[in-house]
């Protein structure tokens, strides 16, 4: 073997042993991804069901009971009866129920005399997203009951305009189909930026970087030798996530596998470059950990479109999201998994990642000459 390759191999071997011997890096690389995938695949869900709903019927007659019955039968609600509105309000304040359905004592009278009978609904608005979803379900149940009520009296309920909706790519609108692919970006950021930044910063902090500097290793060999084990680790995390997504959570993969691999490798390189840059700039584990958390992990969670819609953010925050590499990768992931190879989306986002890679690589090389201070 030629000398250069042997030097490089030695460096790779040392880095790999360092990863394998420290329980904390093993847990970040393997335990954490599995935990995140299980949490997001099984645990976390935006799809509300069994919403605890208080029902107050002041005059329990047939019409009121029939309307309340529609809520009893719905899979979305877990109704509880209250005798008076004050009791229901108290239960809402104590967070025992999330909403109240209130049928006042003139409900049936106004309904049967052909007037408009009011059905009062109060929802706890603290969690505004859930409150909106709850309102949607209540509207749906109400419309279904209206139709049923009209049919029972031999009439049809004709709404002037009826909506026919077709949802593409995820017809059942289940949230784990979009959360699990996006998670791959987060897992790779964690390994590429956070773990790498910490481990390399430790080398500076402990002074072993200086020991490495007096060896015949070139800076380039040192960087490549450090990066290869983490690249392998990150791609391993990605393969594990893809396998779990496909076989455990039944997420479809509608794009070609090679394209997914290629884009993932590109994203991994960007993450690694960011991790290296952080460690070189901070040269301190505490700082490197904090900075990696703030500039790479949290943004990939909140500013990438993984959970929150980028389009609805204020313009200046949208401008910030262009600096988050996970933004481009999440767009590719959601498209490749659910929609298929839509070339304009893939090429545009991959091009943006390539540009970021070049910029960060130049910065890393510029900052990382052999130097003591």
């Amino acid at each position, binding site marked *: 073997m030629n000398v250069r390759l042997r030097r490089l191999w030695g460096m790779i071997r040392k880095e790999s042993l360092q990863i394998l011997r420290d329980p904390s890096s093993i847990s970040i690389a393997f335990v954490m991804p599995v935990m995140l995938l299980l949490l997001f695949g099984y*645990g976390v869900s935006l799809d509300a069901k069994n919403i605890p709903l208080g029902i107050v019927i002041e005059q329990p007659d047939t019409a009121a009971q029939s309307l309340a019955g529609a809520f009893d039968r719905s899979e979305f609600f877990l109704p509880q009866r209250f005798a008076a509105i004050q009791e229901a309000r108290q239960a809402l304040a104590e967070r025992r129920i999330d909403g109240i359905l209130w049928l006042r004592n003139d409900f049936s009278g106004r309904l049967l005399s052909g007037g408009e009978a009011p059905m009062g609904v109060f929802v706890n608005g603290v969690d505004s997203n859930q409150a909106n979803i709850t309102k949607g379900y209540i*509207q749906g149940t109400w419309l279904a009951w209206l139709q049923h009520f009209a049919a029972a009296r031999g009439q049809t309920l004709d709404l002037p305009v009826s909506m026919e909706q077709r949802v593409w*790519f995820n017809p059942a609108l289940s949230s784990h189909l979009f959360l699990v692919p996006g998670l791959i970006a987060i897992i790779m950021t964690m390994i590429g930026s956070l773990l790498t930044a910490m481990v390399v910063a430790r080398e500076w902090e402990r002074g072993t970087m200086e020991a490495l500097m007096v060896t015949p290793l070139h800076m380039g060999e040192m960087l490549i030798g450090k990066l290869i084990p983490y690249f392998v680790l990150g791609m391993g995390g990605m393969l594990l996530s893809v396998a779990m997504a496909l076989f455990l959570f039944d997420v479809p993969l509608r794009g070609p596998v090679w394209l997914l691999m290629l884009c993932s490798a590109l994203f991994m390189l960007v993450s690694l470059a960011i991790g290296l840059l952080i460690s070189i700039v901070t040269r301190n*584990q505490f700082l490197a950990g*904090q900075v990696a958390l703030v500039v790479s992990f949290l943004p990939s969670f909140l500013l990438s479109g993984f959970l929150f819609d980028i389009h609805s953010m204020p313009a200046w925050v949208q401008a910030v999201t262009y600096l988050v590499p996970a933004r481009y990768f999440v767009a590719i992931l959601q498209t490749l998994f659910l929609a298929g190879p839509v070339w304009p989306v893939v090429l545009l986002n991959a091009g943006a990642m390539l540009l970021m890679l070049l910029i960060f690589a130049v910065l890393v090389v510029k900052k990382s000459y052999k130097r003591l201070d």
Partner: protein
Amino acid sequence: MNFLHIFALARKEFLALMRDKRSRIIIIVPPIVQLFIFGFAATYDLNDVPVAVYNEDSGGASRELLARIEGSPHFSILHKISSDAEISTLIDTRKVLLVIRPGQRFSADLQRGSPASLQLIIDGRNSNTAMIALNYLRNVVLDFNGEWQREHGQTGPPVKLEMRAWYNENLQSQWFVVPGIVGSLMLVVTLLVTALSVAREREQGTFDQLLVTPLRPVEILVGKAAPGIVIGLLEATLIIVLMVWFFDIPLRGSIPALYLGILLFLVATVGVGLMISSICVTQQQAILGAFLFIVPAVILSGFTTPIANMPEFVQWLTYLDPLRYFLVIVRGVTLEGDGFVLLLHQFWPMAIIGAVTLVLAGWLFRHRMY
């Protein structure tokens, strides 16, 4: 307990943390930057959803409905298309989220009184966004229906839905998310500060020296816990002031109850941090260990996704998470106007978590040798 001992140790801990200018900056600046960026970014509300219209109807009714959709702040009509093929191009490339297609006979059907169909094709890649957009659109259509029936002398539905939201009357995402960010930021800062405190001394070998000083383990524990709690209290105050002044989040409940919650939450967090710190041998392990706790703690706390939607087994796990209780307290005091009584069941679990983790940490000080 000798308070002089504790004071001396706490002072030394502060100096270790604050002596370095970059550490000082990292404790203060990032949380504030995060509060601002995430306070604006983390929203489920949709504005200006890009929409394309494929209108095959020539009547006035469809134009009126489309004008209503355009007039809503949630939607903006970017494209008018005239063929099926364009639908998939626009949706596949994410140029639009939604294509609205009134049928050819839309206006004619409406005039005749038979149901007019409005076809919607929506990108489901982000299912939550899709569901919210459909909800907004349903409201526009329901309003249109109501008005059409009134104008044309038809009877409306016999039961009228009157919906109102309490506590967050306009259902603004920001009111829900920003108090959650307060809790998450406190968790991150306090946990990292305390998780490093013992591990740093272990790595440098000074912890053994500390153990042979006249300081008793209880005094070491209190001295090590003090900086985290003081920094946490100051940080919490700063963030809450910004939350109320800048984000206009109301503070309707009892402030003493909020501060009792903050104190108990900090004790619980510091306990967890010290426990992680006394298990770990190096700083790297401590930071990654803290991270291994922070990520699931934030996900399981109900910060962005409701606990009620989780499977029962996972819901049981959330009872171990101090952030879960604290978020109820912050949101309860800010939005719901709660006082001590309604929050009682959030206080004591945090006290128990704090007591258990602190006792374990103190025990580990002496019994974890390596």
